[in-house]
């Protein structure tokens, strides 16, 4: 079974803090993605990575950065958290050789910035 895990299910941070959201997949997938999910807006792509140390901006990268030092781990970084970054964050991964089969999603991290 493919497993995508996220370091926290719930996180509360203060405005201005640096926040790290971690995602780990155990199936040697090349591509990994970070989405944010907001009510009425669906899922929007923040960043994705197609290999170690490689990254591409998605549709809403402003205020975020990412890091992929190892193939299994993809980190989302909020350099200075703001209240408008309060959201659900979902990580996903795919096996490129298996495309166009499904993206596998983690359970999500609900981040609240106060």
């Amino acid at each position, binding site marked *: 079974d493919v497993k995508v895990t996220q370091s926290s299910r719930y996180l509360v941070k203060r405005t201005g803090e640096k926040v790290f959201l971690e995602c780990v997949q155990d199936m040697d997938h090349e591509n990994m993605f970070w989405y944010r999910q907001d009510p*009425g807006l669906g899922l929007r792509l923040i960043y994705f990575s*197609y290999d170690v140390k490689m990254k591409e901006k998605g549709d809403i990268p402003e205020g975020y950065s990412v890091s992929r030092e190892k193939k299994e781990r993809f980190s989302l970084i909020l350099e200075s958290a703001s209240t408008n970054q309060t959201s659900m964050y979902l990580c996903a991964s795919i096996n490129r050789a298996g*495309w166009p089969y*499904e993206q596998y999603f983690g359970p*999500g991290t609900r981040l609240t910035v106060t």
Partner: protein
Amino acid sequence: AQSVTQLDSQVPVFEEAPVELRCNYSSSVSVYLFWYVQYPNQGLQLLLKYLSGSTLVKGINGFEAEFNKSQTSFHLRKPSVHISDTAEYFCAVSRLTGSYQLTFGKGTKLSVIP
């Protein structure tokens, strides 16, 4: 660029009644089509996908969807819903080649009433 429109944000339906969740997409190139389901406090799970061939595709949990190229639609149906189908449903598209990004609709919340 692609876009996805889910025409209903909320759909209430009585248990054992049929349901249709509507999805229309826009794209200048051919796309793959997906339906995902999100149960409360969980990540996304693939219900079904259309890649090519027969326009009627069957998925898990008794769901099916029909691809209509002329109407650029991919509506999701189930002939008889159960309480456990209460969830949020997302329609998504992806280009056939290039990146492996999914573009999601805003979601439809299905509420099954006992």
